[in-house]
């Protein structure tokens, strides 16, 4: 079995390969990383923080403390039945409504000395 062999003849591809091998191709990226290192470091830290927060949230959701509820005792039913009423309740009502206030009706003030003499005014 013959082993196929590829030979790169394109000068641009050869140049690119040489740049990759020598590390010249990464020089602009390396320069950008160095220049904005605090931006991407802090961005990275924020992302890591968010990831940890979401992980913590997921864990806490799965481990909620159990809620203890009282057993269902059903709806309370009023125990009062029909009350026996007397036929003479109206007399009691009349007595309760009876006002002992006096004078009732109130006697209004009347002037018994209506004349045109100056002493009466």
């Amino acid at each position, binding site marked *: 079995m013959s082993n196929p062999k590829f030979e790169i003849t394109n000068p641009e591809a050869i140049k690119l390969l040489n740049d990759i091998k020598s590390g010249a191709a990464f020089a602009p990226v390396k320069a950008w990383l160095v220049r904005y290192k605090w931006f991407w470091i802090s961005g990275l830290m924020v992302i890591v923080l968010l990831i940890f927060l979401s992980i913590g949230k997921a864990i806490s959701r799965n481990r909620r403390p159990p809620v203890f509820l009282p057993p269902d005792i059903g709806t309370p039913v009023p125990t009062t*039945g*029909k009350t*026996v*009423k*007397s*036929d*003479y*309740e109206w*007399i*009691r009502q*009349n*007595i*309760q409504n*009876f006002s*002992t*206030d*006096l*004078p*009732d*009706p109130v*006697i*209004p003030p*009347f*002037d*018994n*000395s*209506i*004349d*045109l*003499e*100056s002493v009466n*005014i």
Partner: protein
Amino acid sequence: MRFLYVICLSFIVLFFAPSVLADAKSDYDYQYGQYRTGYSEFVVLKQDYLNTPSLDNQQKAMLSAKQTILARDLAKASLHWYLMDLIAGYQVDYGPIKPITTSLNIAREYFLAQAQKSQSVITQEDLKKFTQNYQSTVQGNDSIIKFGIVANKITALVRIQRDSKTALDSIIPKLPTPIPASLTARIQELKDSAQIIDGKIDLLANNLNLADAVAESVTEIFFTARVEKLVEIRELQLDWINRLIDIDINYVQPQI
């Protein structure tokens, strides 16, 4: 045809009568309202006359005085009628109160007569004489109203006593036979208590001394002393009816 016309007219009168005829309370409210309005006007006009004693001011004050006197005595007559109406409303035939209702009616007629008499006043001298005469006779008639107010309360208590007695009389035949001894004792207690309450009401009514009405009505304790008695009787009546209702519920009413 004429007979039919009379019948139709009677129906119309009967239909509209309640709305046309004023009751005692509304009549009193109206008359007293007239007096209050007239009196405040009279005070102003009299002051005008005293400050400036012109003939014109005198005439105005005289007219106002006559109107105010008319309104005053009609208001007093209405108040007496209102009280008589309240007492009659209880539909109680109670002897000790009769002299008071009679006096209320006499006083009412007196005030109506005074209202009519006041319209014959023409001069200032007439007015002076009228008022002097009025003041010498009005006290006795004015004092009756206080007695009427107490009589109204007494009549209400008597009405309650009558209703309570009727209730007891109607319960007894409904009780289970033979009546248990304890229940018999309770009914006897009710009868005895009713007599005691009757006695207290009679005492209160008989203490209304009409013969010395003027002197008695001006005392400060005229009402306060009687309020105490009314409260006491009311409490006794309430206790009495509570005991009767207890018997009714436990022995007469069907148990559920």
